[in-house]
C-alpha cells in the first residue's frame, strides 16, 4: 500500500506537487493519469526516495522508502527504461541488483525468462530496442518478487503482443494481492488495465476513485443517430427539449444527450423518418480525462478543438 499525505514538491516558485493526499490499495491496478508536467514523475520519484518532498511525505507499507530494510523485495519499479548502464549486459544489470538486496541469482534467470529476454541476456543493453529495454526494466521490477509495483509508462515501445502481455501481467500481479501503481498516457490502455484511477493536474490530486465512477462522473453517455433526414430529425428532437449536437464532419450523424435510444427511435418512427444508425455511445476515459483536466494542462496546443493536446506524449 502506498500512502501520500500532504506530499509537496516545490522547485523555486513552481509547485510540482501540491499537498497530494492519496492511497494506492493492494489487490487492484491503480492508474495514475495527468497531463504533461502535472507532477506524475515527481510523485513517483518521491515515492521511491529519489527526490525529497518539500513537505509532507509518502510511505510504502507504512515506511518511507529509504527506511525499507530490503527495498527491492518490497517495491519494484520501472521509472525510465533507459536508466541502465548500457555497457553492462542485461544479466549483469539484474545480477548486481540481486546482489545488493541478497536476492538469489537463480531469480535473475527466472525474471529473464518471464520477460522473454533469454536470447539477449548476455548482450550489452546499449543495443537494446526500446521494447527490449522496457522488458529489462520490468524484469528488474519483478526481481525481488515485491508486494508493491510502480510502473511509469510500461508499454512504451512495446509491440501489440507486448502490450497485451504487460496488461495481463499487471492484472495478475494485482490479483495476487499486490499493489500496482501505473502511469500511462495511453488512455484506452489504462481504461482496459486499471480498476482505480488517480488523476493529477498542476500538482493537485483531482480525482481518486474507481475507473467506472471516474468516467461516469466526468463524461456522459449519449445516443448517436444517423439519418438521411438529419435536419428534420434535429428539429423534432430539439422541439422535444433534448440537447442535440450535429457532428460536423459526418454524414447526418447527431449526438443526443439525456435520452434513451428507445426514445430517439420512437420519435423518428412516429414521424416516418428513416434511421440508418442508432447507438448508445459509452464515454471513453479519454473524454472524461479531457473534461476534467481541460483547465490544468500545462501546455496547450494551438488547436481550436479539444484534440489529444496536453495528453502526455513521450
Amino acid at each position, binding site marked *: 500500500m502506498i500512502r501520500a499525505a500532504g506530499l509537496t514538491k516545490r522547485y523555486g516558485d513552481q509547485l510540482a506537487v501540491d499537498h497530494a493526499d492519496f492511497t494506492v490499495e493492494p489487490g487492484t491496478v491503480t492508474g495514475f493519469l495527468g497531463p504533461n508536467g502535472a507532477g506524475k514523475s515527481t510523485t513517483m*520519484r518521491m515515492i*521511491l*526516495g*529519489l*527526490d*525529497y518532498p518539500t513537505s509532507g511525505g509518502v510511505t510504502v507499507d507504512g515506511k518511507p*522508502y*529509504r527506511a*525499507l*530494510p*530490503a*527495498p*527491492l*523485495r518490497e*517495491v519494484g*519499479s520501472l*521509472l*525510465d527504461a*533507459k*536508466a*541502465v*548502464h*548500457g*555497457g*553492462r*549486459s542485461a544479466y*549483469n*544489470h539484474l*545480477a*548486481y*541488483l540481486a*546482489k*545488493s*538486496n*541478497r*536476492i*538469489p541469482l537463480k*531469480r535473475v534467470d*527466472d*525474471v529473464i525468462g*518471464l*520477460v*522473454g529476454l533469454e536470447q539477449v541476456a548476455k548482450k550489452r543493453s546499449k543495443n537494446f530496442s526500446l521494447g527490449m529495454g522496457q522488458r529489462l526494466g520490468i524484469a*528488474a521490477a*519483478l526481481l*525481488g*518478487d515485491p508486494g508493491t509495483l510502480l510502473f511509469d509508462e510500461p508499454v512504451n515501445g512495446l509491440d501489440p503482443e507486448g502490450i497485451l*502481455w504487460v496488461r*495481463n*501481467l499487471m*492484472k*495478475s*500481479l494485482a490479483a*495476487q494481492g499486490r499493489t500496482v501503481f501505473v502511469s500511462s498516457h495511453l488512455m484506452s490502455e489504462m481504461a482496459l488495465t486499471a480498476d482505480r484511477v488517480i488523476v493529477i493536474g498542476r500538482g493537485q490530486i483531482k480525482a481518486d476513485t474507481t475507473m467506472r465512477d471516474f468516467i461516469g462522473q466526468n463524461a456522459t453517455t449519449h445516443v448517436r443517430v444517423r439519418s438521411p433526414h438529419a435536419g428534420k430529425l434535429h428539429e423534432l428532437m430539439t422541439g422535444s427539449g433534448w440537447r442535440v449536437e450535429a457532428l460536423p464532419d459526418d454524414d447526418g450523424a447527431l449526438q443526443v444527450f439525456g435520452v434513451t435510444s428507445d426514445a430517439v427511435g420512437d420519435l423518428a418512427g412516429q414521424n416516418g423518418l428513416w434511421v440508418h444508425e442508432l447507438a448508445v455511445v459509452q464515454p471513453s476515459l479519454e473524454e472524461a480525462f479531457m473534461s476534467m483536466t481541460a483547465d490544468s494542462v500545462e501546455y496547450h496546443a494551438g488547436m481550436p478543438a479539444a484534440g489529444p493536446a496536453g495528453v502526455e506524449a513521450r
Partner: protein
Amino acid sequence: MSATTTAANPTAGYRTGFGDVVAGEWLKLRTVRSTFWTLVTLFAGSSAISLLICLAAADEFAKDKAAGKPDSGDIVLVGLLFVGQIAAYVLGVMTISAEYSTGGIRTSLTAVPRRVEILVAKAILLAVIVFVVGLATAFACFSLGDIPLRAKNVGVSMSDAGATRAIFGSALYLSGLSIFGLALGFLLRHTAGAITIGLSLIFIIGGLTQLIPGSFGKWLYKVMPGNAGGGITQFGETAKNAEKVFAPWTGFTVFVLEVLMLLIVGAILFEKRDA
C-alpha cells in the same frame, strides 16, 4: 512468456547490510569494460613510458651521475606519474559519473536508498583495486626502468634510500587519486567536468602555484593535492627538496585529508540532492 511470478519470496523479511552493497558494487565495477581497460592502461602505459623514458635518458643520467650532479633514481617511476595518475583518477571519476550520464544512478538508488553506503562501498573497492594494480605497476616500472640504467652501470635498487617507500607510496598515491576522482565525480556528477577540473588541478594549477610570490605561494604549492601526495613517490635527489615540498609521509597525510574532506562534502551532497 508467462504472466505469473513466483509465490511469496522465501527470504522476505531480510534486511540488506553493507556487505550486500559491497557485493553489488563489486559486480557493477567488474562488469563494465571501462574498468578493465583503464586498469590495463594504468599498468601497461605506465610500464612502457617508464621504460622508454629511462632508455632515452640513460646516457644523460649516467653522465650527470659521473659528474657528481644531483641525480634522481625515481626517474624509473615516471610512467606511473604520467599515465598512472591519469588512469587512476579517471577510473575514480567514471565509477560514479557513468551512473549519472547513463541514468543508472536512479536504479542504483532504488536498490540501495541508503546512499552513503553506495559511496563508501565504491570508495573501499576502488582504493583496494587501484592499490593492488598500482603496486604491481610500480614494481614493473621500477624493474623495467632499471634495465637501461643498469646497462650504463647506474641502476637503481630496492635498497636505495626511499626506494621501497616510493614503490609502496606510488600505489598508495594512485589509490588516493582514484578516491579524489570519485569524490569529484560525486560532487560534479559529470564525467568531462570532473576529469578536466581534477587533471588540471594536478598537472597544471599545481605547478602554476609556484609563480605566486611570498610564503603564501610556497604554502599553496605545498598543499596542492598532486604536490602534497606526489612526494611519497619520489626518492633520490628530488625527494630532498624539503624547501619546496612536504616530507613524503607528511605530504601524503595532507593529501589524504584533502581527499577525505572532498569525499565527505561529496557524501553530504549525494545524500541531500535529488537524484
